[in-house]
């Protein structure tokens, strides 16, 4: 990657877009002027409408003049309600001043045809005209799906409840009983909501929508638009790799999307603070409260990976389109598909946990909602949302790069898209492209997370069954499906999955790594404890698992926890993913990407560091040896030691380690030996194996 060239493309695209009136309107004018206006207008209109309905006259349907008079007589005695401090509520309007009656024959029909708000029939009156013993039985006819009918019934019932309460008090007084002796419970509610429930509900989805819509125009313009104007062909004959072109364009789209999101957020905040929206919302909803200013920068940071994701998806989708119009057609289902998880997340009561943590878009809506409402979030939750979104974004960028400038998309007729996927038209090659492998890994990430969640939920605490099914499903998702994909795309399985034999020196490296990686892993965990201690709850949660492990046969545990993961994870990460990154030749980038992906698949933030470090060693070994087998050995030994330690905690006494020691650190002599052995392993495999063995 040539950063100078990417910068050139980025600035050119940015200048080009910002000179376009349509971008300026969509990205600046609309959020800064139109949205606040719309928001103010719609909230005002809603507030006026709610207020109007709340105080407007209600029409009660009755069947006789007698019923009307009885109800009027009752309503004449409606007391003024009191607040928490016992003072009469201000601005209270008794129902009698805003009610009118209509005498009808059929109450049901009158309500259904909206002649009256609700219908009231007095079914029975016991002890009439004796306030101390009088009892009424009413039947209320209401249509709950009609706001006017619902409000009329509510207001009538509330008025009667207040009158009833007042009569109870009178009756108690006549019996010389105090009301507070009777009441078993007293309540005082303290509202802890820090942001408006309305804003909290609207804003996350609105921000997601705005970020998405801000990215649409630039994404189309920079791909299908460029193609339509005939400049794409010119660009593609320049000596610039497709990856750099996509990177420059992608950064431009991200910038515009973030600009849109930022302007919107600022605009919403300004509208809320300076436009009197808080008061209006407060008038509509007592929980409206304030929008926490402090949350805004965090929300913006959280929006970055989302902007990255949407920009990449849009670029990839628009890359298929031959014209502006065609791109718009493609984008409509994408917007719907994007909003669907967002809407699911926005459902009341949905929490940022379990599968919602990795639900694309949905997790971002929940994160923004929780940040805005000041809900306490665990680092793990934020990390999962950001990491999963980044991973999906990576997959989408990879797809965009893969598609950009493809001749089938650029020049062919309607058969072009088909020809991209038709196996017959795919040119055979050795390694898959980085885009293809990254896309598979990005899709596998949520799928595997859901599979794991499903297994754990289905088998509840049956750890053994979870392990059994994991061991069966792992080869399917991490080896068989990648192999099928590689076959379909006509890639060479053996070199891609690095299934070739390795010379003995790499086996020796693998052996040394296998013997020592667990020590390094333990030290990583020990140092991590200083900054990110593993919560007690998690340790307790794992305790029954460890107890169960002791009951299982060692061979079985070794099979499902060491052999299977070692083989299939090596095939997927150090095989397919690492091989796909070989073509760009940047070893350290390939190792870092592979290790990062490997660590993310362990889903727990406390295991990120350790799996990253181990992943780095394994990736190095595979890169040098072009074979996964030495890594499989090291991986197997590492997992195997963990299993053996769980079954035989005293096993490490052999190494002079006290298993009951308080310290998380390994004894210094063990660490030194481990470092020396790892250095030796790296030194032994320092010379990369040639592509073809002699």
């Amino acid at each position: 990657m040539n950063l100078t060239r990417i910068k050139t493309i980025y600035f050119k695209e940015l200048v080009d877009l910002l000179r376009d009136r349509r971008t300026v309107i969509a990205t600046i004018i609309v959020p800064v002027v139109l949205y606040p206006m719309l928001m103010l207008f719609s909230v005002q209109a809603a507030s006026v409408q709610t207020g109007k309905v709340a105080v407007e006259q209600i029409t009660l349907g009755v069947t006789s003049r007698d019923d009307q008079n009885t109800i009027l007589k009752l309503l004449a005695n409606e007391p003024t309600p009191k607040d928490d401090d016992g003072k009469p509520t201000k601005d209270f309007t008794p129902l009698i001043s805003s009610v009118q009656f209509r005498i009808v024959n059929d109450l049901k029909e009158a309500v259904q045809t909206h002649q009256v708000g609700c219908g009231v029939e007095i079914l029975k009156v016991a002890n009439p005209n004796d306030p101390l013993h009088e009892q009424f039985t009413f039947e209320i006819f209401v249509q709950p799906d009609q706001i006017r009918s619902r409000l009329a019934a509510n207001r009538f019932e509330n008025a009667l409840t207040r009158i009833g309460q007042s009569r109870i008090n009178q009756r108690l007084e006549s019996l010389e009983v105090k009301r507070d002796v009777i009441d078993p419970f007293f309540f005082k509610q303290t509202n802890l909501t820090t942001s408006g429930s309305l804003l909290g509900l609207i804003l996350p989805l609105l921000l997601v929508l705005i970020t998405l819509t801000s990215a649409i125009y630039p994404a189309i313009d920079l791909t299908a638009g460029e193609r339509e104007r005939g400049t794409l062909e010119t660009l593609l004959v320049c000596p610039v790799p497709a990856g750099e072109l996509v990177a420059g364009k992608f950064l431009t789209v991200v910038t515009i999307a973030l600009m849109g999101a930022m302007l919107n957020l600022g605009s919403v905040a300004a509208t809320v603070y300076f436009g009197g929206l808080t008061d209006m919302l407060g008038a509509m909803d007592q929980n409206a409260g304030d929008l926490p200013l402090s949350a805004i920068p965090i929300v913006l940071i959280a929006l970055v990976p989302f902007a990255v994701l949407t920009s990449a998806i849009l670029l990839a989708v628009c890359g298929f389109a031959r014209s502006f119009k065609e791109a718009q057609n493609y984008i409509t289902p994408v917007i719907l598909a994007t909003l669907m998880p967002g809407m699911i997340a926005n459902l009341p009561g949905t929490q940022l946990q379990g599968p919602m943590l990795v639900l694309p878009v949905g997790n971002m809506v929940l994160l923004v909602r929780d940040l805005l409402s000041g809900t306490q979030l665990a680092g793990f939750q934020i990390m999962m949302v950001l990491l999963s979104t980044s991973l999906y974004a990576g997959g989408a960028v990879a797809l965009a790069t893969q598609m950009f400038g493809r001749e089938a998309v650029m020049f062919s007729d309607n058969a072009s898209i088909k020809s991209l996927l038709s196996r017959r038209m795919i040119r055979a090659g050795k390694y898959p492209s980085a885009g293809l492998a990254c896309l598979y890994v990005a899709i596998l990430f949520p799928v595997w997370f859901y599979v794991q969640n499903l297994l754990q939920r289905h088998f509840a605490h049956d750890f053994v069954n979870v392990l059994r099914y994991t061991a069966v499903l792992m080869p399917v998702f991490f080896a068989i499906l990648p192999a099928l994909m590689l076959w379909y795309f006509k890639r060479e399985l053996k070199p891609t999955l690095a299934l070739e034999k390795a010379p003995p020196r790499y086996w020796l490296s693998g052996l040394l790594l296998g013997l020592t990686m667990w020590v390094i892993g333990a030290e990583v965990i020990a140092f991590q404890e200083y900054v990110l201690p593993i919560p007690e709850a998690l340790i307790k949660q794992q305790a029954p698992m460890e107890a169960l492990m002791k009951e299982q046969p060692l061979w079985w545990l070794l099979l499902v926890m060491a052999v299977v993961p070692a083989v299939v994870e090596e095939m997927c990460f150090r095989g397919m993913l690492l091989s796909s990154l070989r073509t760009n030749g940047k070893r350290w980038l390939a190792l870092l990407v592979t290790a990062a992906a490997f660590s993310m698949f362990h889903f727990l933030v406390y295991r990120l560091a350790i799996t990253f470090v181990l992943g780095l060693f394994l990736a190095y070994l595979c890169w040098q040896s072009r074979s996964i087998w030495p890594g499989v050995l090291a991986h197997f030994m590492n997992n195997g030691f963990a299993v053996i330690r769980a079954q035989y905690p005293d096993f490490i006494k052999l190494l002079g380690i006290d298993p009951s020691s308080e310290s998380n650190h390994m004894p210094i002599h063990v660490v030194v030996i481990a470092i020396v052995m790892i250095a030796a392993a790296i030194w032994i495999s320092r010379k990369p194996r040639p592509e073809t063995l002699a």
Partner: protein
Amino acid sequence: MILADNLTKSFPTPDGSEKQAVAGLSFAVEPGQIYGLLGPNGAGKTTTLRMLCGLVTPTSGRAVIADHDVQTDALAVKRVLGFLTANTGLYQRLSVRDVLVYFGKLHGMTASQARDRAAILIDIFDMADFASLRCGSLSTGQKQRCNIARALVADPPALILDEPTLGLDVLSNRVMLNFVRDQRDAGKSIILSTHYLDEAETLCDRIGLIHQGRLIAEGSFPELQQQSGEQRLSDIFLKLIHEEPVHIV
């Protein structure tokens, strides 16, 4: 030098079969030579030129530009190649100068090198009057001059020109033809694809006639006249497409 060696390209068709757009095309263009690639619509000219630029991957065969293989060293090829078509667009919201500087930078020049090169090209193509105007506001002729300058930003030794005079008025047409001649005189290898056969007659040193993806005749204009017995290129072409392919060396 530009070399096409047995180039073949097949496309899938909607009914699932394959259509051969170019079938085993071979020719070479020496430095200081204009090679006219001529043929009716759908003959495979544009596909061939796109294969030479690396925009389309050949189904088989190979293309070499200035000793770089298009398939294995596509970026190196693009560094030594200027590409211009009638449909090549310009960035409407950038000025002529901006466009030239941008493409200069994409060819690896520093900002100051790109600015200097743009100034030279603006001078050569007499664009000083409109160099600061946005391309969207230029006339067709001005746009084409800007496009020529864009193709020459890196002063490439090989040029591929696909219908460069399509839709141009007489004056702009003359500018374009003069440019092609000047580039030939500067020692560049040039492929010119055009439907204006009189242009090809006067400009091209060698002519390749393609029909249905195959080269049906190749040679200099006098050689083609002699072989076919016809005087005008259009007559030669019409006669040849009804006969067996003849190769004149």
